[in-house]
């Protein structure tokens, strides 16, 4: 998106600085792309993420246990209860969608029957 100024102008220090900046950025960018594409980087980020997930897991479990217990003591639904309810609602929605599909199909079939009945020649009309 930026304008590419290849021509060198000694009387434009801003332009010179910009060119220097762009050249540095290009070099820095290439270096970083190469760096993140190494196995060492993949290994390091994977290990760090894994270490964080492992060390934070017990804390998360404790917080979840305490919250669930507190909600139960207050006679309130837990996160798991709400999730179960939402899942059931989705299932109901799917059933409704199935019903709608059947109604659509029925309407289409009836439409076809009606059309074919209309198109059928009336035997009474054929009689002299």
């Amino acid at each position, binding site marked *: *998106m930026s304008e590419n100024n290849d021509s060198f102008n000694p009387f434009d220090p801003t332009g010179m600085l910009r060119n220097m900046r762009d050249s540095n950025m290009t070099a820095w960018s290439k270096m970083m792309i190469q760096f993140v594409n190494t196995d060492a980087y993949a290994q390091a980020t994977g290990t760090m993420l894994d270490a964080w997930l492992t060390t934070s897991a017990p804390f998360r479990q404790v917080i979840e246990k305490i919250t669930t217990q507190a909600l139960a003591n207050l006679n309130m639904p837990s996160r798991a209860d709400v999730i179960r309810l939402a899942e059931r609602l989705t299932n109901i929605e799917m059933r409704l969608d199935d019903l709608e599909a059947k109604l659509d199909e029925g309407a289409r079939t009836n439409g076809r029957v009606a059309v074919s009945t209309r198109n059928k020649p009336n035997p009474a009309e054929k009689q002299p």
Partner: protein
Amino acid sequence: MKATETGQAPGGDLYDTLLKIAENTQTFQRLMTTDAKIAQSPKEVIWTLNKAKLYRYVPLVPEDRCHRTPLFLVFAIMNRPHVLDLRPGHSFVEYMLKQGYDLYLLDWGAPGPEDRNLCFDDYTLEYLPRAIRKIKSVSGSEEFSMLGWCLGALITTLYAALRPDNGLKNLILLTAPLDFSDKNAGGFIRWTTNESFNADKIVDAFGNVPGEMIDYGAKALKPVENFVGNYLNLWDNLDNAKVVESWHSMNTWVRDNIPMTGGAYRQLINAFYKENRLMNGTLELRGERVDLSKLRANILTVIAENDHITPPCQSEGVMAKIGSQDKELFRVRGGHIGIMAGSGAEKNTWPHIQQWLAARTV
């Protein structure tokens, strides 16, 4: 004095410069917000299921000039589909509507904790067939075309291979991540297939994988461009209204991250990235084996030559495996998003897709 002669106060240049910097800073701050008007093409919701919504766009041309075969757009599950209709005057949706297509768009929505187990089986065999049934019912056409982008392309490919007789006539795949045999092709596959990367642990910890985490991963593939260069380029072009508005709408879309369901993430990393099951022919969705040779729809695969998220090799290999008679591979210079939303899209990618489709659509 010279300054007085020109009517300018001494130090006027410096004052002007400071004023300009202040103005630019204000513009820059405005652009950091995510309130650009995107996805403006008129549309109506015709079907919903859970968080998913199916939209039908209001046609822009008279009915007698419209194509009868509907075109169904399916975007990735971890981003909003608004990029297909970025802003008035620069929108793929608008472009296709002007060409007389009956357009439908599936917005997967943002999954909640109750959706953490949703996986590609559900998207492919539960959501997509239902949405397609609705499209057929509304359009009155038994045949349809489908365009999938990124993970949307993966889902549409799975569907096309599993349900080849369901009326799918044309399939357009944009930057489709399908073939993961080259474990050194790009950062994503290198990171996720490393033995230290454990997708199960991430899903166990988060349930749904946060959108910010996925966004960070995508940006970290080109860290200097995404975290520094992007903003410097904007600063340099703050006087250019076209660039500014384009940047603002793109920033609004990019920063609207949505989580990816835990089930889909686990499956993506383990079954696709690590084990490459689709290409090996060992992928099963709800007990049905996905056989790419059963895919019979006409197929156009669009590859972004500078794609760092889905490197070209992840879309190329599939062409030899699919059973379609009519297949074309189209290469475009650009990145993962740029080929459809960049400034060159309306001169290269969109016309090619439109012409390819028009030749195969009633």
